[in-house]
């Protein structure tokens, strides 16, 4: 079991690394903001990074196992709900509820 000093240190280290990665690039990139290449990147990165994060979440999906059906079906429900109602909260709650139901009751490991 992790003790409190270790957990505090883990939180401090994680917070420092995360904040540094978020804050320092602004100083480094400030002189580049006028560059047309940076502007080209800046308008296109957001959509692409969200796609990468989605794939990252699904990185351990083993399509050969039936267990993978739970996230695949839940993903389809999330996408379907979002294209239908465009309500972020509804899509996330719906998709997660379907996943919890399937992973806990149907495709138990």
């Amino acid at each position, binding site marked *: *079991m*992790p003790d409190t000093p270790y*957990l505090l240190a883990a*939180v401090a*280290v*994680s*917070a420092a*690394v*995360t*904040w540094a*990665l*978020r*804050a320092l*690039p*602004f100083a*480094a*990139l400030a002189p580049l903001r*006028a560059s*047309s*290449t*940076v*502007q*080209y*990147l*800046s308008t*296109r990165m*957001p*959509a*692409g*990074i*969200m*796609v*990468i*994060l*989605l*794939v*990252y*979440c*699904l*990185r351990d999906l083993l399509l050969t196992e039936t267990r993978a059906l739970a*996230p695949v079906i*839940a*993903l389809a429900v*999330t*996408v379907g709900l*979002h*294209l239908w109602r465009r*309500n*972020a*909260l509804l*899509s*996330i*709650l719906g*998709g*997660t509820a379907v*996943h919890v139901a*399937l*992973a*806990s009751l149907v495709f*138990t490991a």
Partner: protein
Amino acid sequence: MPIRTPVVGAPDRPVDPLPVATIPAPVAPPRAVTPPALSALKDSATVGLALVPLGLAFGVLVTQADLAWWWATAFSAFIYAGSFEFLLIGLVVAVAPLGTVALSAFLVNIRHVFYALSFPLHRVQGRTAKAYSTFALTDEAFALATGARARAWPGRRIVFLQLYMHLYWVGGATLGGLLGSLVPEGVTGLDFALTALFTVLALDAIRDRLHDLPTPALALLSAVIARVLTPSQMMLAACSLFAVALVVRHFASRHFAKRQPDDRLSADRRPADLIPADEMPAALVPADERPADLIPADDSPADRRSVERRPVDRARNPHA
């Protein structure tokens, strides 16, 4: 004549301890009186509120890992990096060395380096506000602040939005930590809330740029290649591949555009120049819709352009 959105022109007020009185616009249409704190509350109602169930899921996972409930609060308040916090539970339960924790934080969060390219920190005024804004620069804050709707948001509205999302996340996590023991044994899969959140953010970001489907396609390709070739450092590899692919595409389209006849250039420039950026619906503004080569060197993203062109707008619309 379209009604100007006065919020666009309002100077950002600093959030730090020295508030500067803002001179109200002489003619203030009703939308001007909506304070940024209130607008941000409305902005946070969609994707932001989704952080509550996500935080709940995180809090439940913390207690399921046999950690005290308040670690859910501590993690979410001080680290505030959703996807990494889910990963961190597994690391600390295994009492991983702090060096491993630091390296994992670095590899999972390295994508934030790229956020500085698009996030409108230049609109946020004041050292404290800027510092907090970078601290709270999560994927969700980035997605909302760089979306088509956010092009005219002043800095204060963005910082308040970040603050609300931070509170939703901490509140959800704390509640999840407190209620976690009530969740029956065998209930799993709550972590899908994170996948669902990124699904929604990706769909919204793609819908903002339906004219530019090669971008999400390149990102998907980069992510799949990175997953296959470097599974342990997928995030870093995918973001780098994607950035390189975009740079190559930029120079390729520029090279290609140079072969186009010159008369296209003036014709393409005209609409954007005649309509002030802040009077167009945000979805119609994309400066990058035109071939890269046709964008003037000083053509910044719409948010800055709306500020830079203000004197011209004033000259054209003396009533504004």
